[in-house]
């Protein structure tokens, strides 16, 4: 979902960059005040992991591919503040080193994949973990649903941004329909990859699942006592 240069007009790109810069500043400050020493290596690991997974385009219907966005996964693993930092690192490196995602569109891309996907992924996961009975399987299921929802909502967010600041005029309903139509399928891949990753981590270090940490922490004794 990397927006290239030229899709979004100047003022909108600038506004998105301002929003992204503000959010990243707050997120970094929050991450910096964490007392937990583990955040440094974990921020590096999750950045590298999301970068690697984003390289793996999988086929979806009709000659189209999709790849993990990773916002939900990052939020589930390291919490929303650090996830915003992680996604910004990934998107920044992709734009500046690999020429993927426009430089002028970096703010838009951070808003879509760093803020919207992270916020939705975190929100859905937190709610589901709170509602579902406590258990490993529930955490994996919650992360799959959170991942799918994050992709679909990010695709809607793109449509909204494009209908306000796109360089051509396309009716918002038409564009949203097309974006959602493709991304309900891309989201399935996101859900599978996110769930597999979370399942693997829950099996070895359930304490490293961050979001809803009080709830997920309750799973730990159940795991270790098995």
């Amino acid at each position, binding site marked *: *979902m*990397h927006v*290239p*240069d*030229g*899709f979004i007009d100047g003022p909108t790109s600038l506004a998105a960059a301002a929003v992204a810069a503000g959010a990243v500043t707050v997120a*970094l*400050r929050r991450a*910096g005040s*964490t007392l937990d020493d*583990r955040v*440094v*290596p*974990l*921020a*590096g*690991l*999750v*950045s*590298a*992991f*999301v*970068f*690697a*997974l984003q*390289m*793996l*385009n*999988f*086929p979806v219907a009709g*000659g*189209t*591919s*999709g*790849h993990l966005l990773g916002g939900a996964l990052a939020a589930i693993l390291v919490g929303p503040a*650090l996830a915003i*930092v*992680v996604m910004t*690192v*990934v998107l920044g*490196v*992709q734009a*500046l*080193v*690999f*020429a*993927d995602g*426009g*430089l002028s569109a970096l703010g838009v891309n951070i808003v879509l994949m760093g803020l919207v996907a992270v916020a939705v992924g975190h929100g859905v996961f937190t709610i589901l973990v709170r509602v579902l009975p406590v258990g490993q399987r529930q955490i994996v299921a919650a992360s799959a649903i959170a991942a799918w929802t994050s992709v679909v909502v990010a*695709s809607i967010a793109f449509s909204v941004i494009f209908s306000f600041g796109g*360089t*051509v005029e396309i009716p918002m309903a*038409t*564009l949203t329909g*097309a*974006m959602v139509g*493709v991304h309900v399928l891309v989201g399935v891949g996101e859900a599978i990859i996110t769930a597999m990753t979370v399942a693997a981590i829950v099996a*070895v*270090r359930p304490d490293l699942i961050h979001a809803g940490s009080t709830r997920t922490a309750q799973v730990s004794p159940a795991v*270790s006592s098995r």
Partner: protein
Amino acid sequence: MKRQTSLRAFVIAGLLVAVALATLVSPWANSNPDGLERVAMDEGFAGQATDHALASGPAADYQIGVSSGEAWGTAAAGLVGVAVTFCVGAGLVAMARRRRSSHTRRSDAMVP
């Protein structure tokens, strides 16, 4: 009760998986247009995209050291990308924490 994996082992194992995915799997990733590119083509705004300012850079389009589309070039880009994102991610958070702790040191000292 099984012994817990140490954080160091966890991070190293995670990085190895990331490197394997980015070098061994990524050359075989699907190269069809992604969801947004597909929609842009179908809705007729794909042509609005302008060239990336760094399109002729040394690592552009996830290719390093070889002509476009070769597996080795993609694998090299994957390895570099994993290394750079790890260092920038960890480094940025380490810097944020250091700045934070130097800010709060004075107020901490007042706490008996």
